[in-house]
């Protein structure tokens, strides 16, 4: 019996070894002088017409621009699982040589665990950077210890997006948008009609709620964390401004009754409610308005406008939150491959001619997006291709970028966001919760974080 068992285990071990060896990736041999790089594409036969047209244009442009680079394009619909898919591919030795999906907030962890390549030499030799044509909003994070680990792909600004057409229809004067929390609640009370599923504000209370919450803490004059100056951070979400912000969320739900009751709804449900006219305002950006849902509901970008997050009192300046994605490179790629991948990636996201054509195609199909491109000098040109927005709205978008600041991302920021979601949801969902109870929940969360990650958080 024992012998049989040992034999079976030995056979399994041998099979495991064979599978491990077999799973090791090996690049195909490439003709002399050609460098092969791998990139991922999300476009497949089920993609929209505009995506297919953009893909065809990309293939054509890349073939013409880089005759010496063989691009091995892998169709990969990663969706919201892109982190998981990338890491799986990296483990299997099949990761793309450049990847343009990670949020800049992922970078501190990825720099620490070596899952992104050091591209310092390439960035230092990069003309566009020398000419100051690259957005710098993420530089503090992607340039760590004098080394570069990514280049920006695009940026967006999150503040309050409002369906002004619906607000007007509900009797609200949109010429003066709410400036303070009190104004905002007054607006919410005026326009909310729960019987007909019209909500003055769509609250983002899902498990990623720390993300919008950061902005609301700023709007109370506080911050989620502050640097101690020695690489560690103090958790300041236990202080009065953060408690005020959490209580304001609770008041929006239970006192003003201006939000959806289903405040834990997923982000997709929230953006759908904003784009189908059910939600009249939401913390977000124009990018959250999916063209296909707008079209299904007879709406367009022209029905929406963007305004600053209301603040606790008028003396507080509320900065918008800058978000965005960066382009990272395969840490396993050799120097030549990295150089080729860098050239291709920067062509796709920085070349003026290429981008102009891309925006033209999007405008033709009525799916313009107003995210800030990585080329700071081309933003106006991009907005000009968007015919749905008038000049005032475009100007407001550009203005909002001036005071936009990136989300804080100290080490273990993701862990912080995961853990704080729990007390925030408790505060949101408890009708009549006292300020002391709310403060205690946030304090308990902070104590847990101090205990779990002493290398990142210190009082």
């Amino acid at each position, binding site marked *: 019996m024992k012998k049989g068992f040992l034999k079976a285990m030995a056979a399994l071990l041998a099979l495991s070894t064979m599978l491990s060896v077999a799973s090791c990736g090996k690049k195909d041999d490439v003709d002399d002088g050609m460098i092969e790089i791998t990139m991922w594409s999300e476009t497949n036969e089920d993609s929209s017409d505009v995506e297919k047209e953009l893909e065809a244009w990309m293939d054509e442009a890349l073939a013409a621009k880089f005759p010496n680079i063989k691009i091995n394009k892998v169709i990969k619909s990663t969706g919201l699982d892109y982190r998981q898919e990338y890491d799986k591919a990296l483990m299997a030795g099949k990761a793309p040589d450049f990847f343009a999906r990670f949020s800049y907030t992922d970078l501190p962890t990825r720099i620490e665990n070596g899952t992104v390549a050091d591209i310092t030499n390439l960035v230092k030799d990069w003309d566009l950077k020398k000419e100051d044509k690259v957005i710098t909003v993420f530089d503090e994070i992607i340039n760590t210890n004098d080394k570069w680990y990514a280049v920006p792909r695009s940026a967006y600004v999150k503040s309050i997006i409002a369906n002004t057409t619906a607000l007007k229809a509900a009797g609200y004067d949109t010429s003066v948008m709410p400036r303070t929390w009190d104004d905002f609640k007054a607006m919410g009370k005026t326009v909310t009609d729960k019987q007909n599923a019209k909500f003055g504000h769509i609250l983002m209370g899902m498990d990623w709620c720390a993300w919008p919450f950061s902005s609301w803490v700023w709007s109370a004059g506080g911050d989620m964390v502050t640097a101690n100056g020695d690489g560690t951070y103090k958790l300041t979400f236990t202080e009065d401004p953060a408690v005020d912000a959490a209580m304001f969320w609770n008041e929006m739900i239970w006192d003003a009754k201006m939000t959806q009751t*289903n405040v834990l709804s997923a982000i997709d449900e929230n953006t759908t409610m904003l784009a189908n006219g059910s939600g009249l305002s939401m913390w977000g950006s124009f990018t959250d308005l999916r063209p296909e849902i707008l079209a299904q509901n007879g709406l367009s970008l022209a029905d929406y406008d963007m305004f600053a997050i209301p603040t606790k009192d008028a003396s507080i300046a509320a900065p918008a939150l800058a978000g965005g994605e960066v382009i990272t490179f395969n*840490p396993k790629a050799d120097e030549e491959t990295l150089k080729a991948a860098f050239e291709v990636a920067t062509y796709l996201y920085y070349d003026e001619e290429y981008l102009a054509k891309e925006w033209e195609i999007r405008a033709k199909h009525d799916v313009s997006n107003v995210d800030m491109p990585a080329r700071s000098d081309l933003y106006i040109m991009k907005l000009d291709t968007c015919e749905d927005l008038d000049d005032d709205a475009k100007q407001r978008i550009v203005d909002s970028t001036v005071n936009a600041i990136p989300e804080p991302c100290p080490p273990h920021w993701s*862990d912080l966001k995961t853990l704080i979601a729990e*007390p925030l949801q*408790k505060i949101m969902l408890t009708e009549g919760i006292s300020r002391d109870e709310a403060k205690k929940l946030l304090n308990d969360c902070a104590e847990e974080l101090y205990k779990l990650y002493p290398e990142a958080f210190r009082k």
Partner: protein
Amino acid sequence: MKKIQSGHRTEKLMSNTKRNERLALLFLLPSIILFAMFKYYPILSGVFVSFFDIDIVNLPGDFCGFKNYIRAFGDTRFYEAIWHNVKFFAYSIVMTFWQPIILAILVNEMRRKSKTAFRLLYFIPAVVPAIATTILWKYFFNPDYGLANYVVQLFGGQPQLWLNDENWVYFCMNFPGMVVFGGMAMVYYLAALQDVPNDLYEASMLEGASFVQRVRYVTLPGIKNIVITQFILSLTGIFGTMENILLWTGGGPAGETETILVYAYKQAINSMDYSYAITLSTIVFIVTLIITYAFQKKTQEE
């Protein structure tokens, strides 16, 4: 002479048996290989890498012994997550486990044509993709415009937060299983009921046993094995559930439905702490293995 002939016959029988065994093994080989590739290889790999601080660029990383296990057993969230699994199991037993048994017994009492119709009626929802039905049920429990609050108010009740309420969330997630699903389990029970000897029913009827007594003393003992199997499957299924919870609640409200695998998933995806996530999954595997073994042993003894 007869002895020699019988000896030959035995030898022939033995060699036939051996040949059949070999043949069976040959036919089983493809499935054994696939099982080894897609089941045992990942499991063994998981156990192996749980002893490492994984470096996904240069696998497997640094050997760290039992560090990840020590961390898990000192982690309060780990115990909370297990407690959530236990709650899930308790709710599923109370709300969904007994219903297919009763259904099967009732359907079994019907005439042949009605039996087929009811069997089909209850089975159809079991083949509808879980994602589609979960989304529909989420709409049902939506506190803003869901049907659940409408029905409650119709009977004079107060609207509830349902999935957003820690006190209701487990009930809501098990409710579809109670009222609609369970068709698959019912089919198993119905099949088991066909094996309960008719003589026993006839004898009990002659003795004047009521319907309830027949169920208590004939039917239930007759299908005991399949009930135990279903019980074990429910238990192991609850420990292995993740996608369903992510779809229903994402682990909320306020972490109330964060089960052990959801916790492991969040550790992997949100924190990129793959070593710890794999360790948690390995612990789940070991726990379910022990539970299954214990139940099987107990059943065999009985």
